[in-house]
């Protein structure tokens, strides 16, 4: 592994990194000045050339998304997705807490590129500190004339508002976020029309993740060629990786996407190895929705392509949770199943019922009352919901399918062994399905 100089996290740990003064001293707000001298089309073209793939989970190219906007539009909205609710992801939190002005600069450039007059930054309500830090930074930017009317002395106007959510995972889905912004329950919309055509308040809307927009100033400043030179050809640009669980140094780290899961866990620059020298049992490398790896698959690269070869849905949020050999796989299965049962918005029947069934089955297995045929039943339930078989409006149930399917398939031996060893064993405690 070559050396790598942090870009997105370059201000982390610098004293006063939250303030406009320090950010600007360290080279901030230069990219936006450059962008405002270009035409909006040139900015879109540059981001398109950089092939900046969305960092929120789906990996859709941001520049392409921007170019879907109708040419004759009058009002455009930009929504920044800071709902970050996918366990165990916390990279947006780190970005907003340590370098709020980097995000604001990205927002101004993106708003200029898509000609949005209003940008809403949607934050989950549990983000109290990031909210206050970011709101302070927005205030500073307004006071300096970097936001509002005629930003940086140009003819471009943009208002940036923070909008706080109220606790719902599904509001991280782009149309769910839009519905929530409109003051409704966060039920995702049927697509098409895609938000770029008809989104917030039925106007063309672009929804981008916090990390995606934090990349934009650097693309403008250093050029698309620099961006495509970082990392492997199919997955370019700087990326934040989160690691949590029983490792020595859990945290958020930045690297190019040529990192393997093994390196993320073992390298002293990242996870720093397992606590107490324990062995890895299972890793969920891309946020739980992407699926699980077993101990023999740790050579997987954390990029946009490799995860599919291991039966995972994709790179996701690149947030790995490592589980060691001391954890009972039944507990893991129940935890994963419960998450989706709790967070399913209830709009599509297959997802609402399916996730609850999976939780009930997983809970029964975890309580030591499972049956061998439960494993096939949970697999069957998992496969029969979601967008891929065409049974749901959003991707939440697909995100529920992959972890359940991969855990059951890759750890079937242990699960069967545990089930056969019943009923002497009693594990954990029951959690009610409904609060």
């Amino acid at each position, binding site marked *: 592994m070559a050396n790598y100089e942090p870009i997105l996290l370059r201000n982390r740990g610098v004293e006063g990194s939250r303030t406009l003064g320090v950010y600007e001293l360290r080279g901030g707000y230069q990219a936006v000045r450059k962008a405002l001298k270009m035409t909006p089309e040139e900015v879109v073209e540059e981001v398109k050339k950089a092939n900046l793939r969305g960092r929120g989970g789906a990996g859709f190219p941001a520049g392409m998304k921007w170019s879907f906007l109708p040419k004759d539009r009058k009002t455009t909205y930009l929504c920044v997705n800071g709902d970050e*609710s996918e*366990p*165990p992801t916390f990279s947006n*939190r780190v970005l907003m807490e340590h370098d709020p002005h980097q995000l604001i600069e990205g927002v101004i450039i993106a708003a200029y590129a898509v000609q949005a007059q209003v940008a809403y930054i949607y934050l989950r309500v549990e983000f109290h*500190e990031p909210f206050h830090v970011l709101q302070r930074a927005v205030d500073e930017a*307004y006071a300096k004339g970097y936001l509002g009317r005629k930003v940086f002395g140009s003819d471009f106007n943009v208002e940036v508002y923070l909008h706080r959510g109220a606790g719902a995972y599904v509001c991280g889905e782009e149309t769910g976020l839009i519905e929530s912004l409109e003051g409704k329950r966060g039920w995702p919309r049927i697509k098409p029309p895609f938000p770029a055509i008809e989104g917030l*308040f039925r106007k063309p809307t672009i929804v981008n993740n916090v990390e995606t927009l934090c990349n934009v100033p650097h693309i403008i400043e250093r050029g698309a060629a620099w961006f495509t030179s970082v990392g492997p050809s199919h997955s370019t640009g700087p990326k934040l990786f*989160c690691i949590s669980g029983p490792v020595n140094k859990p945290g958020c780290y930045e690297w190019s996407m040529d990192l393997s899961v093994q390196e993320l866990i073992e390298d002293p620059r990242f996870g720093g190895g397992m606590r107490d020298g324990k062995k890895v049992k299972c890793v969920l490398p891309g946020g739980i929705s992407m699926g699980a790896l077993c101990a023999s698959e740790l050579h997987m690269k954390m990029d946009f392509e490799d995860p599919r070869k291991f039966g995972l849905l994709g790179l996701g949020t690149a947030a790995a949770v490592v589980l060691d050999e001391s954890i009972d796989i039944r507990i893991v299965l129940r935890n994963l199943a419960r998450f989706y049962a709790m967070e399913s918005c209830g709009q599509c029947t297959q997802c609402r019922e399916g996730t609850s069934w999976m939780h009930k089955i997983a809970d029964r297995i975890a309580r030591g009352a499972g049956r061998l045929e439960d494993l096939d039943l949970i697999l069957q339930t998992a496969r029969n919901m979601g967008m891929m078989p065409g049974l749901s409006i959003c991707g939440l149930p697909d995100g529920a399918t992959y972890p359940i399917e991969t855990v059951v398939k890759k750890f079937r031996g242990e699960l069967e062994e545990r089930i056969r060893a019943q009923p002497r064993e009693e594990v954990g405690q029951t959690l009610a399905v409904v609060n």
Partner: protein
Amino acid sequence: MAWIPLDRNKPAFPKDAPPILTEAVREKIRFFFSRYATRRAVLLPALHVVQDALGHVSMQAMTEIAELLEIHPSEVMDTVSFYTHFWTHPKGKKVIVACRSISCEALGGQKVIDAVKQHLHVREHGTTADGTYSFMTEECLAGCDHAPCLLIGERMHKQVKPEDVPKLLADAGNDRIAAPRSDLFDAPAAKGGASNGRPGGGSSAETVGATSDIREMREA
């Protein structure tokens, strides 16, 4: 959040009850009007304002919010019932939110949850007898690098051990963070015109997109 059982034989609150939203609270809500193209979009900010001021969002509060936002009370209730953050019944002064994501559970989160429940003698969504704490769990608090974590009020408590819980809960300032507050977000009343036009401030501010949109939609 919770199912609201209603006694259909009598109204949820007396028809002649004096309004519970004070003028200050209403003014705070109106502050958000110019930020959004529709009144309904002000609902989430309004509910935050009301819950911060009154502790919870009662049926009467929902009705009064609906009136202010020119929508039907059932639309308010529809939104309130969807989100876990809003309480429709009185809660304690501080809310403890325990995380039970996979990272927290793998590092002993369940023991922390049990310790809190035992120490306070509360169940999920319950409130202590003295009205200090309410307790709930959530699926992930995005603090996995500090697992297991516990959110009390605004403060995230990191790497909590079950044995630390009594000390943690005895600390009076355990729900506050030192972050400086912004006066643009939630203290509109005393605010004069900022140098660059007040962002989102009151009806007089000339906001660019949103205001023209409101006009457009009303005319349509």
